[in-house]
């Protein structure tokens, strides 16, 4: 949607006929155009600041159209491209309208003036007599000729140097500026026609992914760029088209298809060194206070110490601000391409284009002039995010592979590595005299700075990872109130973790302290807090804003907290705060001023705080686009409410552990407060930046409201339920209950040594080999036989165990985990050397019925010949025919090496004597044909018991009453079928049928783990067979409940489980809400594919947490046909601690009546550290 400029470069444009440009001349370089008019009637404005998703593009368009007297639709903007747009520095601090729009406006006015002058001489009238309507110039009287801008420009090349003295239009005559205007970008954005940086597609473009080091979110320390030990290329050897790029700690992969790049990034095995542990950042207080700093005295008037000593009422507090994320909804993305001459173009969403260009020049040893940054819009970033980082990633990969590369960061990379909004500590010591006058204020603020060098420069060791310190913590450091004696000190310090500018940088925290403290002083003085502020502020415009806001909100004066209870647990309160956002170096330039009246409700039992309504008034001077400013205010309100109530970046001793939206939750639609935004009309004052001002009073307004509701002042954020509960308990004098320590659980599997000893006292003769055959080829079998064999193979899911990962079907090598070690499945393709190509049918049959390989060796009962022995000759012959007619695959599988006694293969003869009856299935004449068919499939080819029956210490399936009462396969629980099923709802015939047919049953959830493959294979079987299996399984434990009654019970359980999901007052509940609820809370009514109800799922009712943990870590990526659902893996999102909280929460809330699982952390550690097979 960028306007197409009719030239390849500014130099070309400024030499072309049919153009009028107002430019800023530059010594030794091409002049920078600000406004360009073309002979087709279009006007183009160019601005060095970019649109960060706030609608600045529209406001700038309005300004240009206004000064030129053009229709909005004739004007478009080019923002931020290094080639085209003037260099006006970084887009920060809402300066665009206040600063960079000024030359734009002048240039537009100058262009109009020049054109009107030209028209005057052409039409023979004075310029004063002319008016302009949408680019047509004519005498005001209506008489005489007229001409258009386009006509005047046609054939001419007019380049005017920007003249600052040119008169501007009188604001009283504005018809576009100051009127609410629809955003120019939104039609494209809501129809999918807009090009974000994520949407750049170039010919021959490849897809890149980066693999970041484990120290996510840190950028200083000797280990940075020096932690990579090795990259195991063989881990992606099966993806031959993927290219690997490694430069010190920078690791990336490139592939033609995006999913391949993602798969390679997941599969690549990278070994990193250990790293320096971080300080404990659970609370920023110690880390920030301990961080070396340099005091900078910003203000010291009067005698603060003496005034404090003699204050009638004195308070000293520390206010604590946590690390926050920008939390852009679109993780950073960039495209880079080199041309044949070595010039680089980077398509980027950066807001610091020139810094990006210079950093790329250092990174790549390319002259800055050979780098062009094309700036495209991206998801909102609210300050500097990781856009420059990803631009560098793309450039490094593009250079390495010699093709254009697009790099998309993943959500966990974005969360971990985006430079954070810094934590901050504010110490206040202040007081009033006996008359309530503000006599002393001693303020110290500590801000770990935020210079975040481009990541690739650090990872590739192009720059040293030395933490520098910058003077950023001083915004709004001086309180707006007239304290007689005042000292303000900013302790500048280097970063603790990677940080950059985030909306309201350092001003929000500083204002949080000032505006909380003034409330406390007001109460001590016995004065209403609004009145007290107005009395103690000398700026009349600010006083006006404070009074207007209170009036708009219907503020009722108060001198003590109201503590109004609106329900047995719920208190309501109202708070006020005001700030004028000051940006730039101290004392700073004033942007818009804002004041808040906020209503909250506090649940005193759960600790939850809800912001229900915010009335905010803002003084932005002249407003270009009132609707735009109102939306901007609302945006600031929602975002800052979110930051204050719920946001805090979590760390462990290594890195950031907030790696998705569940571990860093943000405000959602149901919690969004009602917002009333008011603009103070000031059409004759200069416009003030409105981009972030409304955020600044948020925190204090909210804590002041919570104080009004509860009588407790909170000075550390965020206001999580835990913090609020603790605060309320402390006030009541009782300590919070101790967290109960969980006892480590006993190992669930006990050895049965005695049984082993008994079994192996018997020795049996070694079996003879059966002579190899020269197989004649599949032509000997009829196609009917082969087809029947295919179904038998499907019923038995041969391919499930006999295939390893992505290798050829049935070629073996899949490791089956047993208590004795891994058993590797054999190659059952007809390859003579490595498979069963030399097996005669008798050899095959002996293996299937007796567990003896062709060469006479005993097979392990991990191969369920105990079940296969029940199969009919006809089925076995058909299966043989089918397998022998498949393609032969030469593939030698790893040798199975088990622990004693299983490593002595002949001992298996003794095992067989004890545990194996090689008998063909005999139908029960008393039962129906369907029942018998089902029993045959379940107990024979289907070998359900191999997984679903417990095994004794020797690995033999339990029989009798314990048949099908649950087993373990590959570390997954195979739940009991029938009466012992952990499921809270009895399995009906219909449920079994649905589950086996589709992989999911509404009453029991969906398959995961090894069962996925079983259902997938069963899809080959006719419906009658599946129904027969369901019939047989259901007959083993009739529930006595009708289908309708079962459904009712299931619905009731689902509702019960849903009710347990609130309150969201602990880590586990928050993770569930952010990560799981979308599919598992049963309240997403419009969702395709339906929800999986956890209260009905065997996984959460199981005796062990293993299936749940595995499902969360692995996800369900290749769901069986028909479920049409999938679940992502959360292995990279959750730390062990977070996962334990989630698993514990799920068990507690979704498995009604079941006891808590024992040693969840132990199970998580065990499963996480399992060796990959």
């Amino acid at each position: 949607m960028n306007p197409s400029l009719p030239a390849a470069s500014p130099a070309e444009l400024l030499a072309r006929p049919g153009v009028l440009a107002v430019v800023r001349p530059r010594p030794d370089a091409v002049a920078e155009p600000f406004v360009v008019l073309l002979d087709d009637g279009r006007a183009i404005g160019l601005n060095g600041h970019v649109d960060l998703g706030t609608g600045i593009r529209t406001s700038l368009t309005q300004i240009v159209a206004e000064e030129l007297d053009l229709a909005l639709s004739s004007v478009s903007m080019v923002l931020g491209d290094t080639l085209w747009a003037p260099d006006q520095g970084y887009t920060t601090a809402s300066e665009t309208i206040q600063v960079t729009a000024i030359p734009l406006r002048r240039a537009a006015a100058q262009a109009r003036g020049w054109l009107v002058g030209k028209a005057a001489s052409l039409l023979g009238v004075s310029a004063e007599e002319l008016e302009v309507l949408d680019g047509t110039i004519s005498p005001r009287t209506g008489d005489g000729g007229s001409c258009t801008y386009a006509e005047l420009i046609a054939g001419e090349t007019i380049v005017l140097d920007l003249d600052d003295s040119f008169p501007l239009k009188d604001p009283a005559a504005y018809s576009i500026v100051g009127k609410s205007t629809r955003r120019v970008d939104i039609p494209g954005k809501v129809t999918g026609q807009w090009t974000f940086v994520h949407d750049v597609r170039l010919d021959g473009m490849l897809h890149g992914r980066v693999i970041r080091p484990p120290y996510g979110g840190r950028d200083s320390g000797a280990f940075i760029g020096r932690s990579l030990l090795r990259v195991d290329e063989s881990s992606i050897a099966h993806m031959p088209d993927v290219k690997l790029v490694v430069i010190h700690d920078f690791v990336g992969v490139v592939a033609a298809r995006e999913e391949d790049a993602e798969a390679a990034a997941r599969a690549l095995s990278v070994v990193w060194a250990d790293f320096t542990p971080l300080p404990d950042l659970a609370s920023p207080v110690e880390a920030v206070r301990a961080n070396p700093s340099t005091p900078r005295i910003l203000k010291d008037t009067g005698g603060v110490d003496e005034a404090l000593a003699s204050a009638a009422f004195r308070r000293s507090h520390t206010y604590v601000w946590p690390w926050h994320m920008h939390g852009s909804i679109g993780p950073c993305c960039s495209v880079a391409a080199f041309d044949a001459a070595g010039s680089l173009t980077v398509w980027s969403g950066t807001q610091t284009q020139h810094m990006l260009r210079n950093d790329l020049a250092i990174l790549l040893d390319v002259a800055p002039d050979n780098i062009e940054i094309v700036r495209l819009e991206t998801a909102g970033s609210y300050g500097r995010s990781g856009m420059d980082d990803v631009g560098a990633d793309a450039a490094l990969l593009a250079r390495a592979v010699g093709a254009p590369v697009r790099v998309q960061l993943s959500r966990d990379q974005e969360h971990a590595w985006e430079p954070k909004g810094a934590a901050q500590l504010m110490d206040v010591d202040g007081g009033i005299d006996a008359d309530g006058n503000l006599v002393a204020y001693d303020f110290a603020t500590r801000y770990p700075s935020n210079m975040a060098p481009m990541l690739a420069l650090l990872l590739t060791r192009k720059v040293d990872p030395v933490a520098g310190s910058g003077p950023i913590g001083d915004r709004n450091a001086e309180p707006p109130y007239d304290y007689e004696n005042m000292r303000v000190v900013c302790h500048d310090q280097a970063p603790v973790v990677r940080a950059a500018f985030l909306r309201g940088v350092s001003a929000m925290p500083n204002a949080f302290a000032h505006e909380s403290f003034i409330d406390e002083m007001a109460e001590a003085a016995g004065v209403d807090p609004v009145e007290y502020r107005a009395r103690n502020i000398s700026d009349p415009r600010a006083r006006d804003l404070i009074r207007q806001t209170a009036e708009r909100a219907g503020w009722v004066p108060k001198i003590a907290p109201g503590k109004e209870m609106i329900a047995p647990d719920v208190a309501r309160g109202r708070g006020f705060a005001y700030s004028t956002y000051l940006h730039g170096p101290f004392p700073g330039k004033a942007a818009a001023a804002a004041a808040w009246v906020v209503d909250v409700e506090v649940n005193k039992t759960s600790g939850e705080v809800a912001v229900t309504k915010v009335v905010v008034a803002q003084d932005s001077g002249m407003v270009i686009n009132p609707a735009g400013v109102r939306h901007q205010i609302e945006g600031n309100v929602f975002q800052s409410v979110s930051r204050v109530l719920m946001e805090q970046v979590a760390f462990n001793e290594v890195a950031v552990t907030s790696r998705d939206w569940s571990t860093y939750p943000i405000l959602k639609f149901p919690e969004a407060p009602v917002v009333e935004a008011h603009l103070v009309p000031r059409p004759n004052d200069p416009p003030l930046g409105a981009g972030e001002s409304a955020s600044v009073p948020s925190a204090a307004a909210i804590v002041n409201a919570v104080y009004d509701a509860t009588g407790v002042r909170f000075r550390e954020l965020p206001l999580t339920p835990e913090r609020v509960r603790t605060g309320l308990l402390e006030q009541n004098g009782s300590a919070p209950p101790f967290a109960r320590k969980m006892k480590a659980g006993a190992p669930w599997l006990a050895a049965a040594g005695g049984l082993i000893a008994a079994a192996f006292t018997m020795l049996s003769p070694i079996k003879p080999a059966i002579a190899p055959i020269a197989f004649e080829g599949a032509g000997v079998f009829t196609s009917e036989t082969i087809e029947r064999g295919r179904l038998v193979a499907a019923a038995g899911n041969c391919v499930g165990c006999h295939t390893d990962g992505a290798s050829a079907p049935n070629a073996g090598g899949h490791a089956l985990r047993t208590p004795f070690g891994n058993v590797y499945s054999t190659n059952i393709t007809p390859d003579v050397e490595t498979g069963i190509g030399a097996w005669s049918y008798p050899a095959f049959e002996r293996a299937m019925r007796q567990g003896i390989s062709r060469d006479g060796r005993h097979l392990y009962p991990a191969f369920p010949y105990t079940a296969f022995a029940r199969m009919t000759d006809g089925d076995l012959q058909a299966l043989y025919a089918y397998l022998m007619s498949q393609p032969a695959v030469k593939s030698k599988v790893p040798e199975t090496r088990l622990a004693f006694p299983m490593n002595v293969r002949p001992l298996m003869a003794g095992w067989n004597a004890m545990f194996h009856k090689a008998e063909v299935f005999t139908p029960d004449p008393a039962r129906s044909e369907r029942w018998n068919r089902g029993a045959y499939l379940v107990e024979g080819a289907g070998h359900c018991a191999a997984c679903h029956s417990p095994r004794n210490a020797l690995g033999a399936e339990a029989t009798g009453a314990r048949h099908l009462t649950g087993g373990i396969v590959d570390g997954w629980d195979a739940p009991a079928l029938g009466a012992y099923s952990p499921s809270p709802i009895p399995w009906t015939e219909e449920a079994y049928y649905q589950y086996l047919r589709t992989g999911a049953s509404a009453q029991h959830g969906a398959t995961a783990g090894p069962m996925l493959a079983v259902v997938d294979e069963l899809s080959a079987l006719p419906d009658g067979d599946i129904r027969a299996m369901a019939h047989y399984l259901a007959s083993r434990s009739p529930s006595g409940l009708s289908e309708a009654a079962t459904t009712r019970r299931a619905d009731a359980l689902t509702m019960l489980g849903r009710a347990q999901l609130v309150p969201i007052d602990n880590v586990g509940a928050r993770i569930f809400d952010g990560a799981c609820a979308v599919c598992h809370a049963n309240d997403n009514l419009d969702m395709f594919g339906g929800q999986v109800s956890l209260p009905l799922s065997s996984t959460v009712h199981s005796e062990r947490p293993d299936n749940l943990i595995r499902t969360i870590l692995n996800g369900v990526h290749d769901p069986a046909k028909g479920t049409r659902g999938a679940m992502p893996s959360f292995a990279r999102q959750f730390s062990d601690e977070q996962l334990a909280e989630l698993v514990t929460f799920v068990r507690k809330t979704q498995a009604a009546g079941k006891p808590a699982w024992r040693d969840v952390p132990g199970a998580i550690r065990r499963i996480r550290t399992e060796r990959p097979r």
Partner: protein
Amino acid sequence: MTPRTGPLRLTVNGATHQLAVCSGALLLHVLRNDLQLNGPKYGCGLAQCGACTVLIDGKTARSCILPVGGLEGCEIVTLEGLGTLEQPHPVQAAFIAESATQCGYCVNGIILAATALLRRIPDPSDNDIRQALKYNLCRCGSHNEVLIAIRAAARAMTSHMPVVE
């Protein structure tokens, strides 16, 4: 398990495409890369944010986690298929009239979720709308204007009147 490969038939915005993609490929990648559609966006890949939303058989689906393999025979609609610049769907028209997004990255999911909601409840309450958008994240804070736009769209659709300019 063996990956199924071979041409896959996918019906998107009314047209059926034969695609040489792996059945395990994610719908989001196929829509964006093979069909060059910009509507669905990558936001998290975890079904958490809704940026990648598409409609499948009229219901909302998160294309970032769905393998294309299971979707043959389904009707998939993206933001592009809902309406055009010239003829926007009433929900799109309401979002244009109310300037109801900020950066616009989340708006794809929000519009499609709203469309599915209005199909289920033509005249939703404020609470219905909030609940229907519970799993769509917006970081810019466009919530207020989004709620206004959806109410306007509902009014326009139930009265069969165009969204008021």
